[in-house]
């Protein structure tokens, strides 16, 4: 019988994102069998120690020349072959740009059901795995069962705690025997955005601005607060549509869905689509001059006042607290 879990993760120069360790924490909870981590690309072998420390029994590193550049079809084939040869019960992917591109492709090859962007994965009474995942951008949560023999999940970053367990992280030598010449879609260039901003979906704190900020240049007031907090920057949809901030800032049902510890909604009235996108936040702080704005109903803390006075004062207070700490 299929047993064990394959945790598939991206890495860069030997470093994995935190969500890799979050997936391993989930896998350990679930797995009666072995937890195997699979990484790709140059430097993949250097992820072994960390992956072992956080819960991988064994680590497969496809670091050969075929895997230097990401290819959705090529990598999917490599993952599917690995899953079949290890005969795992389930596969976990990160629900980030990389994992969301790859996971459905792998699920298609394995003829397995996939639950995307799960916030919870658990062992059911019938012995199979179940999951909880947001739908309608978080306006509701679906409890799902997967009825194919093998089960595939992608895990939303930033929800699960990581656990240091110090498993072996033994190197497992495998070769799916693929030739990069057969890969059809290949990444040829990575364009980093200026400033190397923090990623919203993985951010612990987000400072987000809406129409109340009034103009593109006023976002520097929010940037200063974000700087004091070590936070990522976001926005409501209208200001991204206006071009005050890049589209990548847009949080909401048709933008990014986020789950930070603290979300600062500054000058955001709180349209239903925006509230859906932030509903996974642990704390929501609203700063708005309109006391009747719907955002206050969704918030844990609210300040009714002029954001151009409140935000700089708050940045100063935060810096003072951090200095004392």
């Amino acid at each position, binding site marked *: 019988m299929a047993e064990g879990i394959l945790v598939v993760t991206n890495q860069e120069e030997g470093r994995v994102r935190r969500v890799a360790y979050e997936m391993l924490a989930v896998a350990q909870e679930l797995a009666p069998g072995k937890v195997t981590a699979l990484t790709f690309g140059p430097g993949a072998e250097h992820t072994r120690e960390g992956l072992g420390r956080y819960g991988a029994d064994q680590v497969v590193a496809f670091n050969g020349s075929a895997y230097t550049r990401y290819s*959705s*079809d090529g990598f999917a084939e490599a993952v599917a072959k690995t899953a079949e040869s290890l005969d795992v019960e389930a596969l976990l992917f990160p629900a*980030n740009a990389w994992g*969301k*591109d790859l996971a*459905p*492709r792998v699920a*298609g*090859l394995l003829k397995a*059901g*996939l*639950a*995307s*962007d799960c916030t919870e994965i658990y062992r059911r009474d019938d012995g199979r795995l*179940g999951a909880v995942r947001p*739908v*309608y*951008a978080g306006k*509701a949560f*679906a*409890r*799902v*069962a*997967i*009825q194919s023999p093998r089960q595939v999940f992608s895990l939303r970053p930033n929800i699960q705690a990581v656990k240091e367990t110090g498993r072996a992280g033994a190197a497992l030598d495998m070769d799916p025997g693929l030739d990069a010449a057969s890969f*059809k*879609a*290949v*990444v*040829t*260039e*990575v364009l*980093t*955005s200026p400033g*190397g901003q923090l*990623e919203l979906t993985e951010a612990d704190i987000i400072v987000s601005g809406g129409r109340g900020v009034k103009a593109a240049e006023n976002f520097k007031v929010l940037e200063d607060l974000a700087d004091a907090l070590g936070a990522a920057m976001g926005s409501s949809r209208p200001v991204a549509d206006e071009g005050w901030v890049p*589209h990548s800032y847009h949080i909401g*049902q*048709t933008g990014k869905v986020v789950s930070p510890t603290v979300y600062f909604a500054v000058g955001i009235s709180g*349209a*239903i*689509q925006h509230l*859906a996108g932030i*509903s996974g936040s642990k*704390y929501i*702080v609203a700063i708005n001059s309109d*006391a009747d704005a719907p955002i*206050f*109903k969704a918030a*844990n*803390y609210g*300040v*009714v006042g*002029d954001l151009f006075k*409140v*935000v700089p*004062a708050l940045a100063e*207070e935060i810096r003072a*607290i*951090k200095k004392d700490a």
Partner: protein
Amino acid sequence: MKILVLVKQVPDTATKIRLNPGDAAIQTDGIKWVINPYDEFAIEECLRLKEKHGGEVVVVSMGPARVEEAIRQALAMGADRAVHIVTDAVVDSQVAARALARVCQDEGYDLVVTGKQAVDDDQAQVGPLVAVELGLPQVTVVLKLEVDPDAHQIRAERELEGASEVVELSMPAVVTAQRGLNEPRYPTLPNIMKAKKKEVKSVPLESLGIDTDPWVVVEELTLPPERPAAKILTGEPEEAARELARLLHEEAKVI
């Protein structure tokens, strides 16, 4: 160039979700149904490709009779004709992808385009699954698309976390659209009239001869937990800011 665009009809994003205890689907009475916003970017991109390179844009959609409204709207934007896979069944991404892929095979294609995800189930799977079914390469979450039909080559920019990457792939291929790819056009009145006469071929799901048992089954939907009432601070900005910082530091312990 023959371009197929896969379109899903979804509840408008302004919809407030209503559930009865134990429901596995939302209450749909009174809901306004619209084209999935990401599919609008897909339709627009297909129309622009057709305007540039010539050819035909065919809409492929799936669902109950109400879906025809979304199809007509896509036709009013400028698509040439449509295929409607008719079913009242609850399907998962895999069943949808198998059905859509079957119609794609029957139609023939140079390019298949759809949205990066549907804003109802948010699974973000149908594009890649159709690609696997058809044995095609894919590029997802696309911000910029360059198609060279003569060289059968695509160069696309796709969104990553705080960055983007360029993917080069051969045609035919599956492309999924992200916001930022373009600004979808509004249908004009003459085009809305014209769309009424365009061909919409109805194909019952059962006639496709595919396995329609879903693998991913929603057992129950629940609403997110309510947040406790907010602590609202008013008064002088400096004082409110100081009190807020204190609460975040001492009460919530998050700073």
